[in-house]
């Protein structure tokens, strides 16, 4: 189809794949749960119960419609709208993430500017960075004594590393020529940092921030499964305990959609600070 642009063709292909995928899924489901073919024993053990099987996409869509048309209802601790649950998760991610940014970016600046600071802090970073953020959870729960704050702490600890390392790397890699321009114009240290080094390193720093937000969103689901109470991670776990697979699949999709939106926000920030040499 020469009349269609590359984007149009890609979009068409995506839609075709989606439709085919959903049809195959839909078609595969009835075979599993043809109740008539089940033995007496299977029927008695719940094999025929509609919620026990993987639901067809039509059911998931119906669920999505139902949830999304009233996302913010609140009917007690175990029955909140999807919007409220996602809201809790985003709140935790953003607070942990922002605290990490406040620590990581200035510290990364320092490390990037000073070879001594880099050498001194490097061993700590190398040891702390590979620790799974969830491994901190018991210690956090013990020290902080608050599950909410512990979840935020876990987000803090997992988002700090990519931002710290990328900031240090970006700052250390700023071309000497540009720093020399600042020096010949007698810009002070602070002025140089904000008008030359920050914009020069911004693409690398924002890349680190984008990696961090992605990791934070991955980790919050697991953290909330452990901590419980509220949030999208808790919601998935709770629906699984209820054996409501339709809701589980729906919330899995929502985790993907929110993650994509967070990433898209940082992608546009990345475009805003990009420059060509």
């Amino acid at each position, binding site marked *: 189809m020469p009349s269609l642009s590359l984007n149009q063709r890609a979009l068409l292909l995506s839609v075709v794949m989606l439709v085919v995928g959903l049809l195959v899924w839909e078609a595969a489901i009835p075979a599993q749960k043809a109740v008539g073919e089940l033995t007496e024993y299977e029927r008695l053990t719940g094999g025929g119960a509609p919620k026990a099987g993987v639901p067809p996409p039509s059911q998931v869509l119906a669920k999505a419609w139902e949830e999304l048309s009233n996302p913010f209802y609140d009917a007690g601790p175990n029955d909140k709208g999807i919007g409220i649950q996602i809201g809790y998760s985003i709140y935790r991610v953003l607070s942990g993430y922002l605290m990490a940014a406040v620590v990581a970016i200035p510290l990364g600046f320092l490390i990037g500017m000073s070879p001594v600071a880099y050498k001194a802090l490097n061993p700590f970073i190398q040891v702390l960075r590979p620790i799974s953020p969830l491994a901190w959870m018991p210690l956090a729960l013990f020290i902080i004594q608050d599950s909410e704050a512990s979840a935020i702490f876990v987000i803090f600890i997992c988002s700090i590393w990519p931002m710290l390392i990328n900031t240090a790397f970006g700052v250390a890699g700023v071309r000497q*020529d540009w720093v020399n321009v600042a020096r010949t*114009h007698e810009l002070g240290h602070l002025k140089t940092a904000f008008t030359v080094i920050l914009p*020069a390193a911004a693409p690398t720093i924002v890349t680190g921030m984008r990696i961090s937000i992605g990791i934070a969103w991955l980790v919050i689901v697991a953290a909330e499964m452990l901590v419980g109470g509220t949030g999208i991670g808790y919601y998935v776990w709770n629906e699984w305990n209820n054996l409501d697979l339709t809701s589980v699949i729906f919330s899995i999709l929502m985790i993907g959609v929110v993650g994509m939106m967070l990433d898209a926000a940082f992608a546009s920030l990345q475009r805003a600070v990009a*420059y060509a*040499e």
Partner: protein
Amino acid sequence: MTKPFLSIENLTQTYPDGQGGTMTVFGNATFGVEKGEFVCILGHSGCGKSTIMNILAGLAEPTSGVVVMDGREVSGPSLDRGVVFQNYSLLPWLSTLKNVSFGVAARHPEWSKAEVLEHSRKYLAMVGLEGDVIHRKPSQLSGGMRQRVSIARAFANHPKLLLLDEPFGALDALTRGTIQDELLKIWGDSGQTVFMITHDIDEAILLADRILLMTNGPFARVAESVEITIPRPRNRTAIVEHPNYYAIRNHLVQFLGKRSKELAGQASDGATQSPETVRIDLTDAADEPTPEPRLRAVNT
């Protein structure tokens, strides 16, 4: 003896040679530049011209030796020494206008934003950059345009000493001519001192009061200081008619073609290396022997 405005004293620069030893770019270089003087420096690629300029700018520390300007030792860069870098060094995330205006704002913190922009536009227009172009980023400009932005940035700040590292290298003959004229005008009006690196002999004769000649490195020396005995104002077409023109030109060509190599590679052994003054003037009674002027086609 009173010191010149800019005094370079026993300047030595060595670098590690990459094999565990050291390589001396130049040793004990000593020369001076008077206030308001226009000095060009000629020498083959790699002899150490940019290295000297970086030290004069205060961007690099020499291995030993000092630079004194206006009675004060140069330590670190200053707004009094404006630099046009060999590779332009524009900030790629700023527009052309902002690349100039941030420097103007640094020089004149007391000016209003409008004054800063007005002044910046004036200097960009002077190098032929007007209209939409000034809102483009450096990556969207041609090499010659970028070079002109960097010239505008340095000129706009009226530094006492202008340090120019091959400022016109990427320009076509016509633009080059216009900007050379602008440079002469600014220099004439302001009493600034100019120290300029160039590879173009004719450009050096047209612009300079004095040309410093460097031998090839390593152990490069500023071997000669050639006075340009052609009165100003000089005109690019009329200058070739002057009796001294070819005499001077031939001397320079001879030096760069032959003697820069012959004089190369001698360590100074701690002795001060000052350039020998060469004055070629065929207009007054020839009191010193000078090379025979030969007629030669010139591409100006």
